[in-house]
């Protein structure tokens, strides 16, 4: 038996190629650090893809802890926080050098988290032990634990940082927590398997998506009343395939984007009339959403097509998809 090519040659080529890529990457970093970067956690690859916002090319793939899921950035965009669920910790990366800076305790199986608007502390949902863990990001100390419902997941914080909303998947509740006392002030029953909580910038609405229930409950944070339960209907898509997960609302508070899971669509919703304006076809099993810093673009992580879609916010059009690692979960963009 002979092979077509000697076994050594491809590896040498690969080495040369990767050396070239490294040189190109170094050159890129030497330039002004003003370009936008998008960080994507790849749940099945245990990596984080770094995409250059200008070229929309993956410039680096960082090896992370196991099963990276929730991802966010410090308010100044300098640090990237990642929940590495199977390593039971939060990893903090420098957004310029892409190096691991430190790790934070998180409690078991951290899935999603939210930073206080001031940048500290970090509120983490522990899926396995029905707790929200509060961690000081500077001292890496656990400050408190708040018992919540079963399988806590979604985390949203009010723009003034006073109210934290956690959702629990199995209990199907949105827990409103006073961040001054770390006590639950009210529990609101929503539809089955709530996944994400997102405040509108004027603090008048919290949107809570229910994956199995197929709805989004819009709650008034002052009265804890459900203002509206939004349902979704798409021609040619079965009701079971419509599974709302990620929610993002524009800073002007006018438009909400809701990722609909295996429906492979993102709903564009008017936050005053609650009417769905459009269903954008993105990638397979669209999961979480992130805006570019100037909000001109929306990024969607598509877990089954292993890519992110880029939506032009002004025209509500899907302009491109970029292949990342396996099972992209979350994304965050920094200037």
């Amino acid at each position, binding site marked *: 038996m002979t092979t077509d090519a000697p076994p050594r040659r491809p590896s040498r080529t690969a080495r040369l190629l990767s050396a070239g890529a490294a040189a190109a990457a170094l050159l890129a970093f030497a330039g002004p650090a003003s370009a936008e970067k998008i960080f994507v956690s790849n749940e099945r690859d245990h990596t984080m893809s770094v995409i250059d916002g200008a070229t929309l090319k993956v410039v680096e793939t960082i090896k992370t802890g196991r099963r990276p899921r929730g991802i966010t950035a410090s308010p100044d965009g300098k640090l990237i926080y990642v929940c590495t669920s199977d390593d039971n910790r939060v990893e903090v990366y420098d957004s310029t050098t892409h190096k691991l800076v430190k790790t934070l305790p998180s409690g078991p199986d951290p899935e999603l988290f939210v930073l206080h608007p001031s940048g500290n502390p970090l509120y983490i949902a522990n899926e396995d032990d029905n707790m929200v863990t509060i961690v000081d990001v500077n001292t890496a100390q656990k400050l408190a634990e708040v018992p919540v419902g079963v399988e806590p997941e979604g985390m949203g914080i009010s723009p003034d940082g006073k109210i934290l909303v956690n959702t629990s998947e199995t*209990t199907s*509740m949105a827990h409103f927590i006073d961040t001054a006392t770390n006590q*639950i002030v009210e529990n609101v029953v929503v*539809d089955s398997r709530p996944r994400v909580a997102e405040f509108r910038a004027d603090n008048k609405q919290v949107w809570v998506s229910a994956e*199995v229930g197929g709805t989004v409950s819009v709650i008034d944070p002052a009265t804890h009343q459900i203002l509206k339960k939004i349902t979704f209907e798409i*021609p040619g898509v079965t009701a079971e395939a419509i599974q709302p997960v990620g929610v993002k609302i524009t800073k002007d508070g006018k438009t909400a984007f809701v990722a609909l899971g*295996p429906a492979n669509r993102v709903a564009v919703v008017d936050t005053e009339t609650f009417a769905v304006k459009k269903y954008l*076809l993105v990638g397979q099993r669209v999961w979480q959403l992130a805006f570019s810093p100037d909000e001109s673009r929306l990024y969607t992580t598509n877990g089954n*097509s292993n890519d992110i879609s880029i939506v032009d916010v002004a025209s509500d059009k899907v302009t491109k998809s970029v292949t990342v690692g396996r099972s992209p979960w979350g994304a965050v963009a920094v200037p």
Partner: protein
Amino acid sequence: MTTPLRRLTAAALAALLAGASLAPQAFAQGAQAPAAAPAADGPKTPLPAPTPRAAQPGGDRRAAADPDWPCIQPKVGALGYGQMWSGPPLEQALETWRQDEAVADLVPVIVARRTKPEEAAAAIDKFAKDAGAEKNAKLTLLFAGAFEELNTTRSAILAGIERYARKQRALSEKIKQESLKLASERKDMATQNSPEFQQKEQARDWDTRIYDERSQALTYVCESPVILEQLAFTLGREIQARMD
């Protein structure tokens, strides 16, 4: 003396079997759940007792667990074209695509697993060029055909996986019975060394091996519906990218 205990066990078992509908009652009868008692200035709506079986609002929307579904991947029945198609409704195209010769010729090529993605893309390119002014209508027919073929194949695979799971369950029951029988017959050394007993033992071991190997194969079989769905999505993306 043991009667009340036995009755309690039976009741607990019934509650367990009935699942969601009985679980809250079971909790109501039990001691006060710690989380259920609200503090004086606590939330108006308390956290429920820690019952994972509690009925959930909107929870009935999810299909009941299927005992014949052996895969880790959730069972997704037939695909909807809207999951991969944002163009005009496909109902009519789904009826008529076979009547178009060029479409009927190309569909089997692009849905074949052996066709490489770049080959499919090139073939769709040529098809779009040849269609000229009718490009959009023809591409719609092409997607309808590809979608229907992949959905049909996928449904057949789903049915196959369920058949496979039923066979595995029957085999596991057979192994259990064989083992029980062997255990009851294993009385003394003489019996255990008898050719008859050893033959039975060997038969049980073979069945166990077959069961294990089939279980391992299932991991790959379960990927098939997902792979076909991905292919349908990719083709949809390729086809729509060439439409005006």
